[in-house]
């Protein structure tokens, strides 16, 4: 022991490495618009020292943290500020979430219900009286457009239209589609299947898939999140036994499963963490190794502005999506200034947050309007809702852009 004294300075979530430089506070999307929020530095490393002294120093106000991790990305000293905040919330908070938060958090349950009656839900969620009820009774902001629910779940489409032929490929992957693809936007899932099939991979659903739980964590329902997370990891482990990498098209689900399960929810993931990956990363790496090739339509033209979603940035994987997009000859890619769009999962849906959510994103919306691209691209579905609602520009996942631009027949030929 004595040989290695003070050679390393380590502490839980790098608490001790905070130099109190306050840089994180400049990049926190919440503290500029919410004066009751003590800010990342103070909610995180500052108060953590006092919480270690006595749990009475836990301040409910830190729940205003969006867990966007922009503070961690900004921190020059590697302090896991948001992790400190989220962990303390799980450890110390005694308040139960309100019914509205439970509803918003249960994206798959609500999704299942809504899906069965999608046309009615879409119509009613858009109706003024219904919005007024949601606003008044449930606390969901009336200005908020709900993401449309699809009439056919992705899983249903997959089982009817795609499942059969997947076994005919020589190589295989699994797909964690997430709630958004399943209930709101199956097209993204279809796009992924199209690309993967073209490069010779069969795409399979997991044995059992639950919502990744990000919204549950954010709304203080960590117990339920843990249960769901365990189901997912079990399925992912099964896929791993069949040598199938699990692809995703949502940056947030990916981040939650890879990086939050273990330290926030105590779910053991180290054996399968590397089997979970974003589809753009998987494709990029195959292309770079020379294992697959993509061919693109000659007539494809698009000018897109890429928005760096918070969790994408935290994972450090933006480069995979953007490098992949850069391979499309007809595509002009503009990088937007990196900043939070303000939605932060379910945060922006709550009426008490609506105004702030819009303020947080205002600088981004302005930049998009000034650039006037054909569409915006991002890897996060909630950013998509927020940006589409706030700017009117269509927002596409890089996988969808890739699928649009792909010359399928040529690609199949190249990969035979």
């Amino acid at each position, binding site marked *: *022991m004595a040989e290695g004294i003070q050679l390393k300075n380590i502490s839980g979530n790098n*608490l*001790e490495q905070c*130099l*109190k430089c306050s840089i994180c506070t400049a990049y926190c999307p919440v503290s500029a618009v919410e004066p009751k929020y*003590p800010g990342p530095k103070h909610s995180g490393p500052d108060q953590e*020292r*006092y919480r270690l002294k006595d749990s009475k120093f836990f*301040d409910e106000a830190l729940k205003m943290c969006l867990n966007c991790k922009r503070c961690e990305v900004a921190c020059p*000293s590697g302090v896991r500020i948001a992790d400190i905040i989220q962990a303390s919330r799980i450890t110390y908070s005694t308040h139960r979430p309100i019914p509205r938060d439970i509803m918003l958090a249960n994206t798959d349950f609500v999704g299942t219900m809504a899906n069965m009656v999608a046309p009615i839900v879409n119509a009613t969620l858009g109706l003024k009286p219904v919005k007024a009820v949601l606003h008044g009774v449930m606390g969901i902001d009336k200005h908020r457009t709900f993401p449309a629910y699809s009439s056919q779940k992705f899983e249903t489409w997959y089982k009817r239209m795609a499942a059969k032929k997947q076994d005919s490929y020589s190589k295989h992957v699994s797909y964690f589609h997430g709630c958004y693809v399943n209930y709101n936007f199956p097209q993204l899932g279809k796009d992924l299947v199209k690309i993967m099939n073209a490069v010779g991979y069969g795409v399979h659903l997991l044995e059992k898939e639950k919502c990744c739980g990000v919204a549950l964590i954010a709304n203080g329902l960590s117990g339920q999140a843990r249960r769901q997370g365990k189901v997912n990891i079990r399925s992912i482990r099964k896929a791993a036994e069949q040598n199938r990498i699990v692809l995703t098209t949502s940056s947030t689900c990916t981040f939650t499963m890879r990086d939050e399960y273990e330290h926030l929810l105590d779910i053991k993931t180290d054996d399968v963490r590397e089997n979970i990956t974003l589809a753009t990363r998987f494709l990029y790496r195959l292309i770079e190794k020379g294992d697959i090739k993509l061919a693109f339509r000659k007539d494809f033209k698009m000018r897109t502005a890429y928005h760096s979603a918070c969790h994408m940035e935290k994972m450090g994987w933006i480069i995979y999506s953007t490098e992949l997009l850069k391979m499309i000859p007809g595509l002009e890619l503009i990088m937007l200034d990196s900043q939070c769009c303000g939605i932060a999962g379910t945060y922006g849906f709550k009426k008490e947050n609506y105004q702030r959510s819009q303020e947080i994103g205002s600088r981004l919306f302005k930049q998009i309007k000034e650039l006037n691209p054909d569409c915006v691209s991002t890897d996060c579905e909630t950013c998509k809702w927020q940006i589409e609602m706030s700017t009117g520009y269509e927002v596409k996942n890089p996988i969808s852009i890739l699928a649009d631009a792909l010359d399928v027949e040529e690609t199949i030929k190249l990969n035979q």
Partner: protein
Amino acid sequence: MNSKQNDNYDVIIIGGGITGAGTARDCALRGLKVLLVEKFDFTNGATGRNHGLLHSGARYAVTDPESATECIKENMVLRRIAKHCIEETDGLFITLPEDDINYQKTFVEACTRAGISANIISPEEALRLDPSVNPNLLGAVRVPDASIDPFHLTTANVLDARQHGADVLTYHEVVAILTSNGRVEGVRLRNNHTGEEIEKHAALVINAAGIWGHDIAKMADIKINMFPAKGTLLVFGHRVNKMVINRCRKPANADILVPDDAVCVIGTTSDRVSYDTVDNLKITSEEVDTLIREGEKLAPSLATTRILRAYAGVRPLVAADNDPTGRSISRGIVCLDHEKRDGLAGMITITGGKMMTYRLMAEQATDLACKKLGIDKACETATTPLPGTAGKDPDNPHHTYSTAHKAAKGRQGNRVKEIDERTEDDRALICECEEVSVGEAKYAIEELHVHDLLNLRRRTRVGMGTCQGELCACRAAGVMCENGVKVDKAMTDLTKFINERWKGMRPVAWGSTLDEAQLTTIIYQGLCGLGI
């Protein structure tokens, strides 16, 4: 604050440490007219430079049963009268593989004899109580150790003395003892801010100047055989341990880890030093080395925890009068009646002892003073709560209070109600690490003898956290200006404050602490041009 100043007192007490403050309180409570003088600031000496440990006495049970009994008695007294300065953490005495487990039995028996509750618990239980404990431990004993804040304890004693009519002068240094016909009649004081000298008279002078009592005695042509013993300690960046952790063996170097406020402190080393170094103690890398190596045996995570600073104090040990060689040094309380001892009437020296036995020391000195002054009034300090502990808890249990309010309450106790928290400007934090608000700083400036940033730090913990004053020092200096401190003085104080913080950081300036020092330098000297 000292509006009704007088120059005729029953007693003048020299020394603004805990002993002086405690003696001033006791004298004032017994109706004496008291003047307390301090050459710099309260708690500037050994009071502010120790562990902040409320000993149960267990540490001394085997080697010094008398001290042990004293400790446990005072421990129980302070829990009542100074509740707001104490955190009831309890302590563990752990036996490590290199220690003799048989000592545990001797230890528990000695504790029991001294009246200290000492329960043997299993290593598993010890680890459950405090997961930071070295997991290789063979055994543990649980005792009623606790942590105590000497800064706020001293402040509370001073406040109570003042409330009972005492006058208090800080930055007033005794430059001469006035005597006439073999009798002390008062002191000459130099104002260390202005250089101005004044005389104050009293029937009695009590020397409670700690190690500097040596100089005071000299001024009265008396010799006290003081043996300065330097003790060095390290402050770690956050609380690693929940309980006080000691080694279950004979007392040795660096074998106590105390959770204090939001930090923890390991100490101490013990070295005899020459008297001429006591105003300028140097911390050596060997001392730092010993502290870390021994510390990590108590709690292994210390090996990788950031060290904020190092500091050293001097214990005022006194050799027995019949032993000029200084070999038989007493660690107990020494109360000298100079009339009896040296034929000099009107002077008492109270020294030795421990921070946490200050009240008993004060009681002994005050008893003697009362006897000499012919006053027959019993000591009440063991039962009367100090300001901060006295009175009603002002907080409404159904109300949610800010973290800063809770932190301030941890420092000022029930006096927290005197802090202005009405406006947003007053609720704003100066020091974010230690949760010090503008309101608390203003309260300290108005009520607690604050002349500069260093005083403010000792009263509130401004600049005592992780960053050691990186931004808060400037903010605090601004608040000082807004509250009556001259701007040029505030700027000089800022420079001094930054230098004082660096002094403690320098012996441990590696890793994050060096990074922090560079950042502070970039901000104050680079960006702000301070000292350039």
